[in-house]
């Protein structure tokens, strides 16, 4: 008997009482979507910024290696998306479009379509996500309702920069992935 057959058979042998699959409850949201989202992002050590702040950030950090995939931000592009993600190793900034944002925790939904290459939002030194204000929802539940059965090979909820507290619980930003996450709400 294959392992699959034997695992399934041993589960079937167990008398298991039927239980109901609950519906996901709806929860009331009180607050302002934009405010809550911005607070959540900054609690996650990211920041909501304006386009002017982005320009200053680029200048003051001497950033030259930029890939901008978000519509309306093409002018920032200094290079094109390579076919091999290894070539992104020296990328300083990626500007990508987010699909929706969650006010309670700052999570932003992206799929293959937004990323170009799946490695992009991780390997870039700094990440900027452009997010329409009207895409904000209160909780994860509404987010998954909108996502529905959207077909994408890869989807990501990103809520902040790469971080770790593995050394004596001291928070350090920039463990492996992006050292900053900034969001431009449009």
């Amino acid at each position, binding site marked *: 008997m294959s*392992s*699959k057959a034997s*695992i*399934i058979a*041993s*589960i*079937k*042998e*167990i008398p298991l*009482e*039927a*239980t*109901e*699959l*609950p519906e*996901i*409850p709806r929860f009331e949201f009180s607050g302002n979507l934009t405010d809550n989202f911005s607070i*959540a992002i900054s*609690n*996650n050590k990211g920041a909501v910024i304006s386009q002017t702040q982005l320009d200053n950030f680029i200048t003051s950090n001497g950033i030259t290696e930029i890939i901008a995939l978000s519509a309306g931000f093409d002018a920032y592009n200094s290079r094109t998306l390579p076919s091999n*993600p290894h070539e992104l190793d020296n990328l300083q900034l990626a500007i990508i479009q987010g699909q929706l944002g969650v006010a*309670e*925790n*700052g*999570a932003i939904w992206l799929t293959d379509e937004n990323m170009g*290459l799946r*490695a992009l939002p*991780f*390997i870039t030194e700094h990440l900027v996500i452009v997010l329409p204000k009207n895409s904000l929802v209160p*909780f*994860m*539940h509404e*987010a*998954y*309702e909108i996502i*529905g*059965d959207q077909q994408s*090979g*890869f*989807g*990501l*909820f*990103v*809520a*902040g*920069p*790469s*971080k*770790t*507290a*593995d*050394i*004596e*619980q*001291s928070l*350090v930003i920039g*463990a*492996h*992935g*992006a050292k900053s996450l900034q969001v431009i709400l449009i």
Partner: protein
Amino acid sequence: MSHPAKASEFLKDPDKAKWHDETLWFVRDKRDNSSKGIPEWEKLRGTASQIKDNVLANLDKYLLAFEEKAKANHIHVHWAKDAEEHNQIVLSILQKHKCKAIVKSKSILTEECHLNPFLEKHGVDVVDTDLGERIVQLLHQPPSHIVLPAIHLKKGEISDLFHEKLQTQKGNEDPEYLTHAARTHLREKFLAAKVAITGVNFAVAETGEFVVCTNEGNADMGVHLADVHIACMGIEKIIPRRKDLGVFLRLLARSATGQPITNYNSHFRSPSPGKELHVVLVDNGRTKQLAREKFKNSLKCIRCGACMNTCPIYRRSGGYSYGSVVPGPIGSILSPGLDIKKHSTLPFASTLCGSCSDVCPVKINIHEQLYEWRQEIAKNQGLNVKKLSMQIANGVFSVPFAYQMSGALLRGALKILPSSITYSGLNTWGKQRELPEVPQATFKNWYKKNKA
């Protein structure tokens, strides 16, 4: 070695033990604040628990549905009845790709299967990429906590280690400096690996996708740069619907560290063009646990670690004292199911205060199962657990907390008591269920005594 014997090893460094205790308490505190911040917390826990009950009652159907969907999305699905078969499957994929060096993100399952030593024996260089896991790997140690693998180490020890292995400045203990040194070191590994292994937090029957949660982004750095991604999961990680993720992602990080969500929550549904994606579904004792009516609920665990952070015994005895891959309260109900003899002291490493059950995001009745395991173990050894435990509680250990015994007493007790009954008795804290904390004064006394 029994749990109490190993615990007394850990307590030989009282300052560090105290730090460990206080730090985990701090994490527990963050969890409390975070959960209290959302009024729907209890409703979410209840829903998550019901979803998991439904999963356990329909595990075969959900597994088959997951496989069908995943295959349709070009994911290779493998089934492994035990650790050995799991390891063989992984090795054969590596061999097919002539791969001699891999990166691996946090996966408790691969620890359980002892994948690293197995692959190393076959000439594969394995690099754990979670910072905490990399630290313990460089020390040739296992993780001591499922969420905070290096929580038993102080920054001085990590500084010494990095100085030796990564050529960092001697004596520089700055966590930021050390983390960034590891970043540079691991970046090279990410860029070089052809195959990346990850664990799985949730796998969705409805869509055939699976979700991996990290804060560091290390899982994604590995898999998106590699040609082949192998995801290893216990069969209990299945959830029915995509929308169930909304419930679990709200609970997981809040319970683990107090964050509202992990920073990266990656949903893998099909491989990138030209790449390969494998999922290994592993039983390794899980169907046996499912068949144990009293203990099957332990399979609902989402590995948040909250029960460890809150446990007065875990905080004061350290993860290694359990001698099992998953330590703490949940480990103490999972491990006896795998090897009742080896882990016979674990269900006694508890005050049965119930704090673990109170914080558990999927409402596992952990402390009740600990009690049940004590009965099983006593039966197994032909003893009356209640009588013995009462004797212990009234006699040698007439204190509310098991570790309030001096090393000498402990050693003496071990001589006269059965090895499995080394902790004070049943319900010494009664039904005091509002997340009790051990009085600081008694703990200090204990340290003083222990030091002497």
